[in-house]
């Protein structure tokens, strides 16, 4: 059955190719060049869009438009009762792409899965250092080196992962781009030919699109994979036109030079909405921006002071001034689209009078503080300086003098981690895998003080809740624990939660089937252009 459909797809593709006019080319004006084409090596979203979501698949995939997982290259999986063993049953008949540079002779099997993980995991794997300076950032960042005990081939189509401890988010991690499955056969060939670098330049996988060519900083070209296990795509060619400037991207979209673009200028969105040739998809992003106090430094160690400052900042003004309204003021540290979001939590209302009074009641006078503003734009915070300027003028109204400081980005990240840091830091987070743990424990847990916990906030009650939630495997139980944690967070106010930004995707009217990903990915399987 499978064979038949793919054969039909191939035939269809062949007939389409013969008439060049009928070939459908979809152009995506991407925002930056991919760093490379091996998704394990990098952390940038552009790389994942260009490699992981086109050429590759993973054992599990995120269901389109959600953060829930569904079967990918693994048809099914089983979890042992102690929660330590995950056994994946691979999908039969999955073919690797046939391209000008490689013709596969076999279908996907367990060797490919083991190779893909071991290249990131085992230092003695010949592929572990196959490019100069190779480092497997996400693999390390998600804690895999400490988590994995073993990966075994049970049979040709079955792989068993054994973990050292219980970890509920493991399944979500397996669906992340870095965990893409490569072809061992291709790797062996490259290794034999002494061209290992090519793995990072000409990727080959099982995904919906096969790599054709990349011209640095300009264009990436793909062809629909006729053998794709999910069926051939409706578009024949996929092109990434790398266009770094948002205004230029908009111009190209308007002129019909591309079909879809990411990250428009908030300022242009209104005009885009008015354009009859365009349409816009909107979704709340899986992110949060915050102003983190250093809760170990007086007077910010006092809850009352933090609460007062929180009341003094007009979040709506930031949403309007920085995002032109395309964001929502945040009250919780996790975004509303995430499961376990506690909508019952009440935000500190903007009230300069009350804030002033609260500050006086806490015995704080003539307060002056520093606000750290990030030097770069991120989806969660498009212009931190402008936000800082707005906060500065808000704080001025309650008699607090704020000075804005900034550093070069790497320095900013580094200095803001220092436990004795002076000042409150504007920063944010974009979710990796849709699990609340990825926000609450990663950003606010006691272990993260001196690291990602920029508030230096270690609250026993909160920490116990999130640790318990991490180990529990029952979703309902986890939800309850996380909801409680959010209440504790709000009461303690280690951050002023600023916003969750909307992710806005403008496209030509004739584009169909594009589904926005809450994780911020741009994947083009299932997309079509209708006339």
């Amino acid at each position, binding site marked *: 059955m499978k064979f038949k459909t793919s054969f039909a797809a191939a035939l269809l593709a062949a007939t389409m190719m013969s008439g060049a006019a009928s070939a459908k080319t979809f152009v995506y004006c991407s925002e930056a060049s991919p760093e490379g084409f091996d998704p394990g090596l990098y952390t940038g979203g552009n790389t994942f869009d260009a490699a992981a979501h086109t050429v590759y698949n993973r054992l599990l995939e995120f269901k389109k438009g959600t953060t829930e997982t569904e079967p990918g290259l693994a048809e099914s999986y089983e979890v042992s009762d102690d929660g330590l063993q995950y056994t994946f049953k691979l999908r039969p008949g999955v073919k690797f792409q046939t391209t000008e540079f490689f013709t596969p002779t076999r279908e996907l099997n367990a060797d490919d899965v083991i190779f893909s993980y071991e290249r990131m995991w085992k230092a003695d794997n010949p592929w572990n250092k196959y490019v100069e300076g190779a480092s497997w950032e996400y693999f390390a960042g998600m804690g895999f080196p400490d988590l994995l005990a073993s990966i075994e081939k049970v049979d040709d189509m079955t792989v068993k992962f054994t973990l050292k401890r219980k970890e509920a988010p493991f399944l979500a991690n397996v669906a992340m781009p870095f965990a893409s499955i490569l072809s061992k056969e291709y790797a062996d060939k490259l290794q034999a030919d002494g061209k290992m670098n090519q793995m990072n330049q000409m990727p080959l996988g099982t995904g919906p699109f096969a790599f054709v060519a990349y011209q640095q900083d300009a264009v990436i070209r793909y062809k629909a994979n006729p053998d794709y296990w999910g069926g051939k795509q409706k578009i024949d060619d996929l092109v990434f036109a790398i266009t770094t400037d*948002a*205004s230029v991207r*908009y*111009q190209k979209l308007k002129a019909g030079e591309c079909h879809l673009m990411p990250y428009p*200028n*908030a*300022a*242009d969105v*209104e*005009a885009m909405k008015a354009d009859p040739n365009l349409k816009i998809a909107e979704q709340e992003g899986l992110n949060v921006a915050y102003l983190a106090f250093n809760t170990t430094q007086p007077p910010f160690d006092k809850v009352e002071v933090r609460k007062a400052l929180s009341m003094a900042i007009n979040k709506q*003004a930031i949403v*309007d*001034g920085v995002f032109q309204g395309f964001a929502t003021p945040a009250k919780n540290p996790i975004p509303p689209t995430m499961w376990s979001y506690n909508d019952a939590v009440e935000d500190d209302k903007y009230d300069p009078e009350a804030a002033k009074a609260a500050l006086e009641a806490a015995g704080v006078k003539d307060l002056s503080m520093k606000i750290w503003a990030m*030097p770069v734009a991120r989806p969660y915070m498009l*212009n931190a*300086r*402008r936000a800082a*300027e*707005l906060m500065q*003028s808000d704080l001025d109204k309650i008699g607090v003098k704020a000075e804005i400081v*900034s*550093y*070069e980005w790497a320095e900013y990240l580094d200095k803001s981690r220092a436990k004795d840091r002076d000042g409150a830091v504007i920063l944010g987070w974009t979710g990796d895998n849709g699990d609340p743990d990825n926000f609450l424990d990663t950003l606010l847990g006691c272990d993260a003080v001196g690291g990602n916990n920029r508030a230096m906030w270690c609250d026993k009650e909160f920490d116990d809740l999130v640790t318990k939630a991490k180990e529990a495997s029952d979703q309902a139980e986890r939800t309850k624990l996380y909801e409680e944690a959010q209440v504790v967070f709000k009461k303690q106010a280690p951050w002023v939660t600023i916003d969750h930004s909307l992710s806005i995707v403008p496209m030509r009217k004739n584009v169909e089937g594009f589904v926005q990903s809450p994780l911020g990915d741009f994947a083009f399987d299932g997309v079509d252009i209708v006339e």
Partner: protein
Amino acid sequence: MAGTSAPSTEFTGSVSVDPSRRARFAEFWYYFSENRGAVIGFWFFVFLVLVAIFAPLIAPHAPNAQYRDAVLVPPFWQEGGRVSYLLGTDPVGRDILSRLIYGTRYSLFIGVIVTTIALVGGIFIGVIAGYFRGWVDIVIMRLMDIILAFPSLLLALVLVAVLGPGLTNAMIAIALVFQPHFVRLTRAAVMSEKSRDYVVGAKVAGAGHLRLMFRTILPNCMAPLIVQATLSFSNAILDAAALGFLGMGAQPPTPEWGTMLAEAREFILRAWWVVTLPGLAILITVLAINLMGDGLRDALDPKLKRS
């Protein structure tokens, strides 16, 4: 009337040391004022200086005051414009006209500082190289060659990245990049003057090195340096704005024109005034200084003077 005295104070220190300074100045002014563009440029420059000095009096609003009820208001002649914000407002509701007026200060300041550093440093190094020759000269000139081997903006960009983004560092970087031109000019002039009779005469009369270098020779090499200085003045403004545009110059909320332009770039299609006006201000200022520079060259360069 005031106009004739202004440039005299500006140039006496440099051009004229001998008693005939009045005559020389008259001659200079004659040739300068023959160039209509130069005179226009000069008066416009005077106007800019006045704007910069009296910015707090002229500007209708404080440059960083945010009017939250007036965000992205267009200039007054457009629909929706308000007379209280003549040239409109920016994305956080600051008055563009006031920011442009205060921006004049930064641009002129950048021009003055960069030119002064480059000029003083360049003269000093150049005189030493040209006067002493030998290995001192070789080392200095090789160093200058090294600086000149990089495209100036690229070198300034990397320098600012090293020093940290900001107006001060941008000025230092630009001054450093401009330095070699002054060194080369000074050195060449000193070398050609050194063998002249009056220098030899002074030497015989027992003048020391320092006196010879800076009192005797230097004043006679000033003409090309002044021309180069005006050129540097305008280039400094352009380069600082370019660095600001690339996010490496003055940092917001400083109302420096290049930075204003860069900050507002996302509004290019929606609110033309936030992008167009700062750029126009840069263009006009640079143009005025270049016009003046052309006039200066015509008036000071004897070769072109009578052609």
